[in-house]
């Protein structure tokens, strides 16, 4: 923690730090935003608040790569069309246009900052194939791309003196005064002391909420904190029903085997050794990778195909349930060690499987939160002064299904936008009434202390967490049914009541992780409620939201619109809808493999006749 003590003003009750911009979350998005503010104006003071040390943030676990149009035969329209079609036309198309246009420049910026991108023989950044992408455009650093991007950003951030880090500070609330967000309150984890950080603009960059589900690829810290904070202050969460199942994860733990396994040529096999994806409109099964076909189809389709194989009894029974095989044997040990070293290590050390000699058992697990805090194309929320970026945010590029390797690029493209926008806004306002902020901070502290000091609770945390995760999996899995979603709505409502009777063993203050887990569970339950109520109200199937109860088709007449979930305290969220921005791609048939190529040709034909 580098915040200099001299800038800490000891008030009567709580330490106060005065910042121009405060950023909650120091993963890829938060760090990129912090650097953008520092470069926009070195005179601005940035408070970068993270509940972990920045290099522990979950960006670290991203494996496969980051997309940007790079090769001569690729173009921005291709990336745009892949993204919008991949999102089943629920993307904000103007935002996607901005995204694809700025992706390459931001990747080059990462390169200048030292990111160890994998290279071609002549020294250029190399690109690999990825699911749903028409042309190879995914920059990668072996299979540790998120790790390298995060460490590059963190280490680079050290050279900017205006970035004051609050490492291991846990954010408990936003301070909203006079209709404008003007700071945050955080607990210094090591001591349990509270800090008020006043700021003229606040950027939320806290990542996703995958831990609301049982089997997931996410780290323990991915608990929807920033989403819940914005939501509780009236900012809607958009498109929360769209949760991404990644098709190739480790049974039992849900740990990720990157899509790059398939980008490098891996096969998915059922119990008969058959490449079953050809039965689900993704063929033909060429022996080498064919973009936007078979194993390089989009994640929603691949996870759905697994579900059908399981129904047909064509999966393999393992100790943790049904699995299929990810077969990398034909790639050979040498190339696997070079391109997929971490996958090799995970398979060997966690499963005792040598992927050059045996197939890896895999199944789909929850991976990514497509929806998030409502943001315009410039990352601004409807609450003045509040911005959001990264997985916590719904800036509009993922629609109903994110394409792999678009989210790492999102962090840096929109991290810069958020930093630029927040710094510009910060210069137009002042902190109005410090006394009012201090008073609010006191109330926030009292509420947070109420959780840790409470005696006589009866509900054990692990029980509530487990029931939540199980119920979300039952109601909001790969395929969804009305009655099951209703049961999950009821369960989450019930858990929110039982949460009030939480039993806490630990009443101390220093490094009380049980206290923090309790606050996180509160965040998770609010986000879970937004997810399931958004899901049950969307009476169609689109992208990762697939229903089997009479709403099997996409319904553009009624549901070509964004879901907006508004927080309503103890009650069910209020569900509203917002328009989808269409610029140049009218909703069409979403097809992959040979069928997709045919549909593309027809669209091109139509366009040339129009």
């Amino acid at each position: 923690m580098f915040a200099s003590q001299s800038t800490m003003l000891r008030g009567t009750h709580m330490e106060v730090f005065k910042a121009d911009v405060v950023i909650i979350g120091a993963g890829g998005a938060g760090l990129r935003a912090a650097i953008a503010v520092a470069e926009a104006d070195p005179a601005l003071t940035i408070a970068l608040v993270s509940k972990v040390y920045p290099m522990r943030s979950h960006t670290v676990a991203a494996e496969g790569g980051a997309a940007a149009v790079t090769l001569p035969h690729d173009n921005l329209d291709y990336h745009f069309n892949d993204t919008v079609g991949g999102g089943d036309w629920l993307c904000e198309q103007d935002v996607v246009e901005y995204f694809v246009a700025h992706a390459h420049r931001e990747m080059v910026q990462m390169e200048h900052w030292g990111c160890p991108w994998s290279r071609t023989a002549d020294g250029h950044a190399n690109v690999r194939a990825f699911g749903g992408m028409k042309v190879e455009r995914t920059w990668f650093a072996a299979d540790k791309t998120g790790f390298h991007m995060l460490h590059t950003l963190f280490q680079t951030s050290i050279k900017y003196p205006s970035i004051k880090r609050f490492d291991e500070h846990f954010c408990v609330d936003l301070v909203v005064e006079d209709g404008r967000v003007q700071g945050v309150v955080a607990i210094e984890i090591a001591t349990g002391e509270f800090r008020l950080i006043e700021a003229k603009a606040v950027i939320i960059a806290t990542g996703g909420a995958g831990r609301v589900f049982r089997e997931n690829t996410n780290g323990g810290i991915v608990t929807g904190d920033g989403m819940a904070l914005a939501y509780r202050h009236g900012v809607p969460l958009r498109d929360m029903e769209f949760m991404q199942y990644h098709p190739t994860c480790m049974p039992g733990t849900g740990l990720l085997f990157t899509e790059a396994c398939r980008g490098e040529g891996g096969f998915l096999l059922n119990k008969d050794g058959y490449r079953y994806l050809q039965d689900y409109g993704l063929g033909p099964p060429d022996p080498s990778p064919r973009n936007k076909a078979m194993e390089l189809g989009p994640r929603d389709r691949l996870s759905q195909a697994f579900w059908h194989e399981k129904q047909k009894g064509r999966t393999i029974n393992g100790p943790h349930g049904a699995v299929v095989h990810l077969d990398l044997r034909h790639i050979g040990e040498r190339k696997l060690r070079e391109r997929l070293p971490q996958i090799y290590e995970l398979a060997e050390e966690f499963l005792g499987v040598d992927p050059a000699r045996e197939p890896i058992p895999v199944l789909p697990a929850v991976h990514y939160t497509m929806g998030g805090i409502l943001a315009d194309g410039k990352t601004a929320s409807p609450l003045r002064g509040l911005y959001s970026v990264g997985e916590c945010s719904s800036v509009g590029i993922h629609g109903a299904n994110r394409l792999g390797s678009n989210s790492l690029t999102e962090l840096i493209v929109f991290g810069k936008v958020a930093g630029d926008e927040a710094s510009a806004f910060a210069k137009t306002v002042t902190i109005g009434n410090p006394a009012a902020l201090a008073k609010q901070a006191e109330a926030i502290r009292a509420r947070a202390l109420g959780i840790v000091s409470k005696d006589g609770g009866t509900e054990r945390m692990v029980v509530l967490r487990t029931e939540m995760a199980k119920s979300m999996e039952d109601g909001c899995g790969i395929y969804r049914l009305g009655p099951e979603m209703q049961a999950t709505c009821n369960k989450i409502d019930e858990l929110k009541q039982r949460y009030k009777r939480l039993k806490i063993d630990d009443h101390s203050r220093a490094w009380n992780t049980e206290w923090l887990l309790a606050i996180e569970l509160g965040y998770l339950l609010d986000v879970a409620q937004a997810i399931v109520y958004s899901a049950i109200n969307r009476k169609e199937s689109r992208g990762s939201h697939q229903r089997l109860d009479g709403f099997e088709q996409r319904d553009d007449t009624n549901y070509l619109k964004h879901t907006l979930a508004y927080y309503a305290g103890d009650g069910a969220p209020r569900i509203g809808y917002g328009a989808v921005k269409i610029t140049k791609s009218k909703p069409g048939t979403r097809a992959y493999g040979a069928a997709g190529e045919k549909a593309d040709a027809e669209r091109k034909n139509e366009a040339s006749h129009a």
Partner: protein
Amino acid sequence: MPDNEKIIEIEVLRYRPEQDAEPVLQTYQVPFTDDMSVLQGLQYIKDYLDGTVSFRWSCRMAICGSCGMMVNGKPELSCKTFLRDYYPGKLRVEALAHLPIERDLVVSVGDFVKKLASVKPYIIPKEARSLDDGEYLQTPAQLAQYEQFSSCINCLLCYAACPQYGMNPAFTGPAALALLHRYNADSRDGGKAERMELVHSEEGVWSCTLVGYCSEVCPKGVDPARAINMNKTSSAADYFLRFVMPKGVVK
């Protein structure tokens, strides 16, 4: 939990600054299956036996670097150390050696982060290049010069292994020196001369006595001992070269 579960005894070194004058061992009986990591054992304790035990963890897949601890006296990432390998014996987990304990298994990371900052862990460009000019060219062979050292996850197992750091906490230490070398060895970087001041200093490479245990415990194959040794060679060369070359020319 399946029926055929076994029970392993886990001793946890507890230290709660608000109530313990000094660390004490506490024992838990933990049911486990063969695929469970030491971390999962601790999570079981926290969830079902004792909510007051504190430890850091996140990714569960040996990349975030949070969950380092001493397992039967050896620095390990608890997420990729498995309970089955200690059964039927018992298991003792303690905070990483040589680092101040904040509570239970949580050690202070602040000193490392300061040392990391001291090595200037960022590109100091050899030649300026604008974004419009695209990426710097770097061949796979040039990448290979530093890639291994860029794989450090900052888990601090090497600090817990390093006897020199144990005796002299001013020593810059294995991970930070490996990262220093990572930037020095990067073809895009021109900051070596600036960093070598630290390398030469008392806290730099010469504190290392080449025990090599840091590289043995590294979960990512970074080999900090090799990085330090390469800088010793470089530092010694600088020492002699300064008699024959004007200051500042050394690259």
